[in-house]
């Protein structure tokens, strides 16, 4: 059977992809219905969405369980491994482009739409006749639109929690790399310690992020309604936070898989995929720290 390393592997039929399509549809249909429910109405959308979400979790659990079993059975040869690696790389590239859309929106708004509304360049007449009370400043209280859009607000300082979060994510990148080296050297205890530390740092980041949001809403009056500043701030940091949360869950799953001895020195794609994802999340944060918080 050792000959199989040179052989093609075509996986067996599985019902998980079909289940995945069904639960994704359920979630989306429920969410759309929920969004359209009139206020106070006991719409069934929320229930459908919840059922869908439970289904999505169950689907991930079941699909990954079957993949892990096949992997442990030694079905995945070098060629399959390469396909998985390419798949993960291109998936991360698609994520980069997704964040690119939001960063692009941020740059456009700061470089063009806000100054134009304030009367710069070819926006002179727009400013004079349509938005003459518009003060084109970025981040200052009330500067991002008429006050009725959420009222005056203050911005989150870059040098408080965000700086701390930057240090946390950067250290977590180091710890996950130490864990990877330990994996290649075969030191299981060291992997568990450093991977566990990475999970904790990820959870800490999410926790601080939640604190920051609470402070923004309750003390700074910085909300989703705070003009485009609020829109870009919350969507960029929010989608990033969501990715950190997912990454932390993935790292935790990998921790348990290390505990169960699923990975070997030279066969641990699952570990590496999650580590790549974690570095990607880290790099996005550096962009956020620079363009959303500092500048």
């Amino acid at each position, binding site marked *: 059977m050792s*000959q*199989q390393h*040179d*052989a*093609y*592997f*075509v*996986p*067996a*039929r*599985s*019902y*998980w*992809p*079909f289940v995945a*399509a*069904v639960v*994704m*549809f359920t979630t*989306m*249909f429920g*969410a*759309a219905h929920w*969004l*359209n429910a009139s206020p106070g109405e006991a719409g069934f959308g929320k229930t459908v969405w919840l059922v869908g979400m439970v289904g999505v979790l169950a689907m991930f659990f079941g699909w990954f369980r079957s993949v892990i079993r096949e992997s442990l059975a030694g*079905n995945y040869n070098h*060629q399959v491994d390469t396909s998985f690696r*390419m*798949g993960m790389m*291109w*998936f991360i590239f*698609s*994520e980069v*482009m*997704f964040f*690119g*859309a939001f960063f*692009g*929106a941020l740059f*456009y*708004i700061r470089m063009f*739409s806000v100054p134009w*509304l304030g009367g710069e360049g*070819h926006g002179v007449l727009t400013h004079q006749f*349509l*938005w003459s009370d*518009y003060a084109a400043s970025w981040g200052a209280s009330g500067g*991002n*639109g*008429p006050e009725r*859009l*959420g009222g005056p607000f203050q911005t989150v300082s870059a040098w408080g929690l965000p700086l701390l979060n930057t240090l946390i994510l950067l250290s977590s990148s180091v710890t996950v790399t130490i864990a990877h080296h330990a994996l290649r050297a075969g030191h299981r205890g060291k992997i568990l310690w450093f991977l566990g530390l990475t999970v904790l740092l990820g959870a800490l980041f999410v926790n601080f992020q939640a604190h920051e949001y609470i402070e923004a809403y309750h003390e700074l009056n910085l*909300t*989703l*309604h705070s*003009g*485009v500043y609020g*829109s870009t701030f*919350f*969507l960029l940091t929010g989608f990033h936070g969501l990715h950190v949360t997912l990454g932390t869950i993935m790292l935790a799953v990998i921790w348990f898989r290390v505990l169960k001895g699923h990975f070997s020195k030279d066969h641990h794609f699952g570990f590496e995929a999650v580590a790549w994802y974690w570095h990607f999340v880290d790099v996005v944060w550096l962009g956020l720290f620079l363009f959303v918080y500092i500048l």
Partner: protein
Amino acid sequence: MSHAAIHDQHDDHHGAPKNFFQRWCMSTNHKDIGTLYLIFALTMFFIGGSFAMVIRAELFKPGLQLVQPYFFNEMTTMHALVMIFGAIMPAFVGLGNWMIPLMVGAPDMALPRMNNLSFWILPFAFALLLSTLFMPGGGPAGGWTMYPPLSLQSDSLAYVVFAIHLMGISSIMGAINIIATILNMRAPGMDLLKMPVFVWSWLITAFLLIAVMPVLAGAVTMLLTDKYFGTNFFNPGGGGDPVLYQHIFWFFGHPEVYIMILPAFGIISEVIPTFARKPIFGYKAMVFAIASIAFLSFIVWAHHMFAVGLPLGADIFFMYATMLIAVPTGVKVFNWVATMWGGSMTFETPMLFAVAFVILFTIGGFSGLMLALVPADFQYQDTYFVVAHFHYVLVTGALFAIISATYYWLPKWSGRMYSEFWGKMHFWNSVIWVNVLFFPQHFLGLAGMPRRIPDYNVAFANFNMISSIGGFLFGASQLIFLGVLIHGVFFSKKKATERVWEGAKGLEWTIPSPAPHHTFDVPPVIHDEELAHGNVNA
């Protein structure tokens, strides 16, 4: 044992499972999944086509005739969404699924289960999208581009946005799969620059898909939060800008246009050499031209927005960048003609559609050049001239290529020859009526008739009536296609040979017809002279 494919289930060695659910819903077989994609695309083609019939019926005469204006707008919006995301793109993915593993000598796609998921998302996504037509408040009616603030007024927005998210997930996974297959699953000896042009065109298209589908997802997510969560991305009152949406949308939208034409280029580059019995002229130039077109597609998006009030410098940059695309496209058209030059040509149905493609797509290309000129575009923007332009590139371009590919490879899929007589009937009816349908729209547009309007000035009556007659008959001609397909798959008595076409070259013609459930379990030995495009390095 080495180099043999391993299948987890014993019955896989003998063919497809009998159980319907197991075979079609749990498939990991590229041929079955490709078939599903193609059937889905054909279904959507007729649904989207019926929407177009409503549009042409309403425009048959001036004045409101049959439907309410809002319903008319729903029809134009849904026609576009269904045809683009439901018919053209899945058809190309289906062709890619079927043919890429056969063309590179792989036993299957690189990630077969993800392949199945990519497909099965689609019927559900379109159920979500089409269900809005039956809801109180109706479906989306602000055009397929979903420009705010108009699109934000519709209650169907959430359904449309989520449907687009699902389609995006499907496309991205499909594209990842195709890239991994092409880069990782080729038979030994099938070097990158020996691959058929169709495979090359899909490799580049897949890259475009992964690069821009997430951007569309981001754009529609901003629409969603603007409508339901109080953000201000596209609201000038809060510092945003509706034009920002157009920028993000067309950063996706222009590469998307090439996503719908590059695989067509690939198909034509397979069909013409076969029936001209000559290797393609300038193989490497063809590959590099596709790559340059893909690169340029990222820096031309604002030519969809010339009239929106961009700074003059931006208008001029995007005008020149757009005209630059004519260079690699010209290379391709030149090479197709040069391939036919001096060839021993025969005109079976696939070749007829391919030749029509070269001529009619070029007409669409030329009207595109006219639209690329900023001063001219100020006149043409949002008129029927634009409608005529993109239907020449999408119907006589992308769709004709898909039809050509279907006739070309159908005998390989089903093992039976389709009826050449009825194929030619389909061709001549299609090619005549499609021109009756779309050519007068150039004149309407130049005379100033706006698009997406259910009623019009009586001055436009004659050309609209001609166009509608062409539309009905073009639509009816596609029923011939359906008939030829059903006959060619199930009933035709004429068996197909392995090679099917006298001049056909390439790996897909070395396996039996119909293609067995599993092929290339053992990687084929590559002989350079027998490759689709000959020994291109010689």
